[in-house]
């Protein structure tokens, strides 16, 4: 990759992607509203939320938590940039985990009951989705012979037909990451009607909360691009696949109640993980392709 190309990709990852992410977050709320028979907020709503939060006077949480949230934001930016630069998927997922850890540590650092309870649940969410994502990366590797995202983009045929389970587990990951039912156990997406209030974000306000909102703008393109890896040629089909996963998670959100963390753990480790493993075993069994 030449230097100008790297610059262009970095620009796209750091500046363009979040704008798309913002619109997607807005679209998410809008679609949810339509599914509920409402009009819903304008698509640019997240932008106004962000500006308003930044203009709030002061911050209520500890400096440490703010720093953690900044690291969470940074990890989302870096991981998105890594995908755009065609970097190693495993390392990218580690960076994502870095962000998750920062977020969780931040939540734990606020000694406030709901921050603590919510963060404990957040931790269990990490335990549920992290293996699914790594299995996805391994699945991709088994067909491409490489963990590099750049190599996936060079493929001539889509991966999805051989990795069908991962599209489904990805919907699960979307639901967890985007705080949607039935997995919105640590904090709900838009409406705060949760028994643990806003979980890890209970004490976060003003500009610090803006960091989190901003981080979500990077999170959605990131999740989308992970899905896109499953159908990397042509790339627009992958983006469509990502959008389809997003839509699926929105629909699931609206047809399911929030379930409990114990249900989530059971589902994750008794259904989603074994399903992923089954798909992987299939890939091992029919070794070929990229290897």
């Amino acid at each position, binding site marked *: 990759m030449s230097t100008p190309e790297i610059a262009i990709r970095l620009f796209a990852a750091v500046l363009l992607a979040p704008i798309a992410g913002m619109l997607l977050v807005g679209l998410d709320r809008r679609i949810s509203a339509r599914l509920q*028979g409402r009009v819903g*907020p304008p698509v640019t*709503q997240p932008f106004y939320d962000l*500006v*308003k939060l930044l203009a709030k*006077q002061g911050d209520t949480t500890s400096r440490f938590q703010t720093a953690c949230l900044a690291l969470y934001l940074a990890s989302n930016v870096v991981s998105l940039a890594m995908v755009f630069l065609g970097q190693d998927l495993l390392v990218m997922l580690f960076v994502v985990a870095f962000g998750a850890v920062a977020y969780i540590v931040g939540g734990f650092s606020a000694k406030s009951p709901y921050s603590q309870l919510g963060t404990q649940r957040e931790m269990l969410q990490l335990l549920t989705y992290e293996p699914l994502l790594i299995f996805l990366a391994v699945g991709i590797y088994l067909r491409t012979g490489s963990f590099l995202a750049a190599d996936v983009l060079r493929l001539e045929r889509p991966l999805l037909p051989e990795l069908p389970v991962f599209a489904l587990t990805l919907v699960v990951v979307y639901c967890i990451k985007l705080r949607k039912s039935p997995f919105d156990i640590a904090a709900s997406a838009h409406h705060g*009607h949760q028994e643990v209030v*806003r979980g890890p974000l209970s004490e976060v306000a003003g500009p610090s909360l803006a960091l989190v909102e901003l981080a979500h703008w990077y999170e959605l393109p990131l999740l989308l691009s992970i899905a896109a890896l499953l159908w990397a040629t042509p790339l627009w089909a992958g983006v469509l696949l990502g959008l389809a996963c997003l839509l699926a998670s929105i629909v699931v959100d609206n047809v399911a109640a929030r379930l409990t963390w114990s249900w989530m753990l059971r589902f994750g480790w008794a259904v989603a993980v074994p399903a992923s493993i089954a798909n992987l075993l299939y890939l091992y069994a029919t070794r070929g392709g990229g290897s």
Partner: protein
Amino acid sequence: MNLIQKARMKSPWILHFNAGSCNGCDIEILSCLTPVYDIERFGAVNVGNPKHADVLLVTGPVNRRNERVLRNLYDQMLDPKIVVAVGTCASSGGVFQNCYNCMGGVDKVIPVDVYVPGCAAKPETIIEGLILGLEKLAKMPSKPKKGAQPAEART
């Protein structure tokens, strides 16, 4: 109207607190969230956490035990913020004038920016009250007060 003012107008996060109300106004506030009235059209979200909220919707005449709660919630909200007293009780105590445990209105405890009439206040009136309050919110200073800084300096 500058960007910050516009953002404030378009992103009111609401904290609803029932300060001893009969529930009448509270269910009407909830109705505002539901499809028929849908105040999320205006970017409003019922956040349920004072630290996130810009607008405090208070119902009820404020009783003596939740007086401290109301004050605490108000204090936990970050500036700039507005308080909307929803319903007759919140405005003035209403029908509970003879009740020994009532303070007789939200403005006896915390400053109120907008009074919404009605017993119970109708969703339309609540929405109007919210919008009225946002106009006030938008004009509030963006920087914490240091000496005398004119509120309208930024427009």
